[in-house]
């Protein structure tokens, strides 16, 4: 059902965990639907110095979270905001159609984390 890439990220997810002093945190999904993910980001010089995640969900939810952190790390805020769900799915060698919508939320969680960071930064000014 899943590509080798998805299974690889499911088996060995990258960047799992929380960042206690994160600059931004974003959560999307709902456990009622079976998917919930939280992204933590650390920003340095307008770049994502560190990205970590925690995910409750199916194989696709875990793999897309892992892939998103890998894609986002080292990118500038602007570049990271441009990462789409479709990019994540593509980098994983595709996802089953039913998973495209419900379990492919990691890019959204990343964007939420960035917005959280920007809001906090704004508030400090």
């Amino acid at each position, binding site marked *: 059902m*899943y590509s080798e890439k998805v*299974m690889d990220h*499911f*088996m060995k*997810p990258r960047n*799992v965990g929380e960042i206690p002093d994160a600059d931004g945190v974003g*959560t999307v999904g*709902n*456990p*009622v*639907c*079976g*998917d*919930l*993910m*939280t992204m933590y980001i650390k920003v340095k010089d307008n770049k994502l110095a560190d990205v970590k995640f*925690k*995910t*409750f*969900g*199916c*194989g*696709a*939810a*875990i793999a897309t979270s892992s892939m998103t952190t890998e894609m986002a790390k080292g990118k500038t805020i602007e570049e990271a905001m441009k990462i789409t769900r479709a990019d994540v799915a593509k980098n994983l060698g595709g996802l089953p159609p*039913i998973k495209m919508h*419900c*379990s492919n939320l990691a890019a959204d969680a990343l964007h939420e984390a960035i917005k959280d960071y920007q809001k906090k930064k704004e508030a400090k000014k």
Partner: protein
Amino acid sequence: MRKVYVDHGAGMPLDSRVLEAMKPYFLADYGNPSSSHSYGNSAKEALAASREKVARLVAAEKSRDVIFTSGGTESNNLALKGVAFRNREKGNHIITTAIEHMSVINVCKYLQKQGFEVTYVPVDTQGVVDVEKLKAAITDKTILISVMYANGEIGTIQPIREIGKLARENSVLFHVDAVAAAGKVPINVKEENIDLLSVSSNDMYGPKGVGALYIKQGTKLVPIDQGGGQENGLRSGTENIPGIVGMGKAAELAQTEMESEGKRLTGLRDKLIKGVLGKIDYSFLNGHPSQRLPGNANLRFSYIEGESLILGLDLYGIQVSSGSACTSKTLEPSHVLTAIGLPHEVAHGSLVFTMGKQNSEDDVNYILEVLPDVVNRLRALSPLTPKEILR
């Protein structure tokens, strides 16, 4: 790698003795039972012998009360639609339960569109039908009560005898979907007051694509398909003789081995349940602790999701099912888990282990060795904690 297949509820291997029994009917005895020559007679005899074996499995008095179909789904369709359309003048009310198989629930929904009224009786937290509510639902318009013998997902066995008595007292026809139960637990259509009973070959190590419907003599149905009038005019179409022979053999073997195999599987089931609940925190049993199918253990793990559990176990060679939405075409969790009162976020973390003939105690030990690691790994990934999920 070790392979442990514990998904017998989804699909079973054919018993090799069943395959041997079927073999002659593909290349040698290929006659049509409707033919008058010797090839036809040979097929006719095979058909009669198989009918007798299936009748014996459910303690039907007369083998002619059994007709063969293409499986559990067709048997359920024929029973429900056949009774409903035949009794339209008498009444338009059907009673069933909230945890039936989709081949009953969706037929009921179809019948609702045709003007019938359907009451879906709730079940308790262990999946047992509320007999009092069922009783209260009966009206003078009720023509049929349909309750499954046992639920294949949560394993709960229903108080069929009690419901049968109730149906008889109220002169309402009683249909039982016994697909998940037949061949695993003793069924007696006479003593349990069952008028119609669906069984499937594939759920007792027989071939796929064959099933049967027991119809108590005198119970009138209208057929769904019109044609040559085979199977008492209720199931037209040339009989699937190799498949029917396979089902007959499977029924015979199931009956002979039911007691010993039932005892063995109950032992494995209880060992698995006890082991999991003891070893893994925040794990729970879905369904009834004792009134359940011998090989069925439906277990729930808080704050992780079923499909990732399936994938995680598959990496260790363990094949299992989940009651989670994410493995199915719909995104809803199973209607059965919802009906026993589980909120969606909790229902998602359920696994269904269905053990069968080839499973051993070693398999259970292996699952108990591997499962805690898989659960812990996924829990380490999860943003949820017991505090948040357990309400």
